[in-house]
């Protein structure tokens, strides 16, 4: 019935929505930043545990749509063990992939995140996918205030 939506709602997304990874609080987190999408009410809190400039652990709390939940869940998995610079580079690639500026997506560079490439066909949903990454970006820049997609 929802054949048209297969590119947007891939099985991996349903999986992460049902069972979000790293859905917990890091008690002794070095960074804690709130992200909010006022348009749809998605809210999340991102926790990072740093070791020098390496992200040792990442987790989140909050609620949102399937796209935003899957995006933040996948993100916490993929950035673990990455340096700040590597994570920022990934953000940039992810952003290009979801906003469709770069027609050639480097699938290797984004790995598992490629399942979110489908949002580029749904402008109304791009922010759902990028909220997590904007929040990470703020956390890495150590901005204490909440970020908003607006």
């Amino acid at each position, binding site marked *: *019935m*929802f054949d*048209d*939506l297969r590119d*947007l*709602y891939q099985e991996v997304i*349903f999986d992460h*929505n*049902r069972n979000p990874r790293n859905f917990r609080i890091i008690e002794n987190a070095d960074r804690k930043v709130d992200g909010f999408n*006022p*348009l*749809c*009410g*998605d*809210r999340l809190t991102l926790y990072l545990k740093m070791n020098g400039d390496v992200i040792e652990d990442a987790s989140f709390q909050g*609620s*949102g*749509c*399937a*796209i935003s939940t899957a995006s933040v869940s996948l993100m916490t998995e993929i950035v673990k063990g990455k340096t700040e610079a590597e994570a920022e580079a990934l953000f940039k690639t992810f952003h290009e992939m979801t906003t469709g500026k770069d027609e050639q997506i480097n699938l290797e560079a984004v790995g598992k995140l490629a399942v979110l490439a489908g949002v580029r066909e*749904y402008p*109304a*949903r791009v922010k*759902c996918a990028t909220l997590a990454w904007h929040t990470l970006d703020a956390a890495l820049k150590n901005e204490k205030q909440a970020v908003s997609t607006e």
Partner: protein
Amino acid sequence: MTQFPIDKIRNDFPILNEKIRNKPLVYLDNAASSQKPNVVIDCISHVYRHDYANVHRGVHTLSVRSTDKFEGAREKIKDFINAESGKEIIFTKGTTESINLVAQSYGKANIKAGDEILISAMEHHSNIVPWQMLSEQTGAILKVAPINLRGELILDEFIKLIGDKTRLISIAHMSNALGTINPVKQIIAAAHHKNIPVLLDGAQAIPHMPVDVLNLDCDFYAFSGHKLYGPSGIGVLYGKQALLESMPPYQGGGDMIRKVTFEETEYNTLPYKFEAGTPSIADAIALGAAIDYLNEIGMGAVAVYEAELLDYATEQAKKIKGLRIIGEAAEKGAILSFVLDKIHPHDIGTMLDSLGIAVRAGHHCAMPVMDFFEVPATARASFAIYNTKQEIDILMNGIESLIEVFG
């Protein structure tokens, strides 16, 4: 009673033939904006092809013709809401501007520090923010009357909040997020007992029921053309003549003056005092055409037909496991707001869209209502004269299928 002419009505709205993602359009986002019948679309084109010039300005034939049509629309609106005079009908851009006009004109002239403005907890942002701005400018206090879990105004509490300091009450005739129709006659009676004027935000009520401002005895009534099958960019503020006359102008410019020298300006009479600048001429005339169209059907018949649709939709929705209706007031217009267990409204919106069904997913410009019900957002199906029970079946099937997919 004659049967509601649904087949004819559907034929009158050309957009209903659109295919959305290869499926027939099921348009259920009418509370955001409704679609336009041929008579409105054709009217706009006719005005620009045959009748267009600026209004109130020229002695030439076209300007006279344009002015006649424009003022004719004002008279139609006057009759539609049963106002006493065309002077009480002020053209604005829409509900939002109408409310801002009252806040900045009546409000600034009559409300001072420590005074209270009373609204309800179910208001649209456009009936909250103008009052917050006025409060900031004047030092007045904004009071908010509570609602209950069915989404109804708690009338006792509302009446209790009408106090010695209350200077103005502004409340939705019908809520856009919940569908609740408020007991505005009782509120107005209680307010007038203390000589407090009442503004009704009629943006949602006006397309769904007969509205009679004389009978309601409201002091102001605000609504938008675009929710009433008319164009966007045009709306109305009704105000009682004596009140409007006592109020200072809202904006300065052409049309709102009688005489200007650099020393002083003499303001024009009603309604022009509040209509600075060239109005949305063709849109105002086309709003008149929308009203002609609705009068032919009859707003009473509209209310009956839509009540049937809402009852059917509510009944069907209640059969779906995991669906929670937000807003179950005893008095309700044709709006069904709902949430699904573990499925975010935005996912509902995208999934239904892929089936050709347009619903709204979000906070509906009523964030305080979302907070009250502890939901981030809702999905909202809102019905209009051209919707059918078959379309409601398509919606319900869609909801059931997406619940399955999300598993």
